[in-house]
């Protein structure tokens, strides 16, 4: 009789143990899923950020004509050419002045 009770108690304990183990195992599995879901969310966020980054890259920055437009400014060359032309005119004017001085002014006879 005693053996019978002992056996029943052991079976009940084993069953209860199995139930406890099974529950904790389910809990553990759910935690893992939660982690996985969070990781997925983070990955999605990161992917979205990466796509945003990708979209933010302005392809026109690599446009050669725009690059030329920014670095090869022709207008300043034209302004400098005009300045050089004016300098040459000043030289011509100075040489004309030089030639206009008449040595004959330094002659006197009575």
């Amino acid at each position, binding site marked *: 009789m005693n053996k019978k009770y002992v056996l029943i108690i052991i079976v009940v304990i084993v069953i209860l143990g199995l139930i406890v183990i099974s529950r904790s195992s389910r809990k553990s599995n759910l935690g893992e899923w939660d982690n996985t879901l969070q990781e997925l969310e983070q990955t999605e966020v990161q992917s979205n950020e990466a796509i945003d980054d990708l979209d933010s890259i302005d392809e026109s920055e690599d446009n*050669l004509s725009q*690059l*030329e437009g920014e*670095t*090869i400014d*022709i207008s*300043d*060359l*034209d302004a*400098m*050419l005009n*300045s*050089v*032309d004016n*300098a*040459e005119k*000043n*030289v*011509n*004017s*100075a*040489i004309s*002045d*030089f*030639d206009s*001085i*008449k*040595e*004959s*002014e*330094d*002659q*006197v006879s*009575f």
Partner: protein
Amino acid sequence: MKKILVSLLFLSLIFPLAAQGALDAPKLQELGAKMIDKRVNAISKYDGLLVQTKHISEATLTQVRGELSRVGGENGELNTLKTKILGETDIPTLKADIKLIVEKYRVYQVFLPQSVGIVAVDRLKAFQQKLYDLKGKISLKADELEGQGKDVSAIRNLLSTADGQIGLAATDISTAEIKFVSMQISDPETARSLKLEGRQSLLDARKDFSDARKNLKDAVQQIKELAK
């Protein structure tokens, strides 16, 4: 025949008297004052241009402007001579004073060509600076174009040619400056030679600069075509 001879004799007596009458003291004074005013005004004009120069050494300016001031300044020797002439009545002395205006100062043979020549040198140096600036700018643009894979060898050739021309002209400018600074009123004949040599150097420099300018202009045109 006799009549003709008498007429000729008469005329030969009359003309010198008439000529002497034309050079009385007031007329000589007026002539002397006019000659001096003309010189002083011309000296003042070119001294004003010398003041504006930017590429002439201080030593040269001090030397040349110092002489201009001594001769043509407000209290200069020419104005002192003018005062003397206006107070003089003796015709031989007046004639001698008027000759002095020319022979002592040689304003048109030495002073003015010297001053104007130096002003021309200054203008040429300004021209040279602008050409160098433009050449440097074109060179930078050529570098940029080359960095973009463009062939800029033709531009580089034009720059090299212009560089040589600017260098030659720079030597001519230095020569001209030395010639003009060396002109002395004490030696008007040598001054005349120096003036002519200096003038030729100015013309040579102008031609080389002008050629350089054309080459740089061509280089700019090529830059524009490559940058399209």
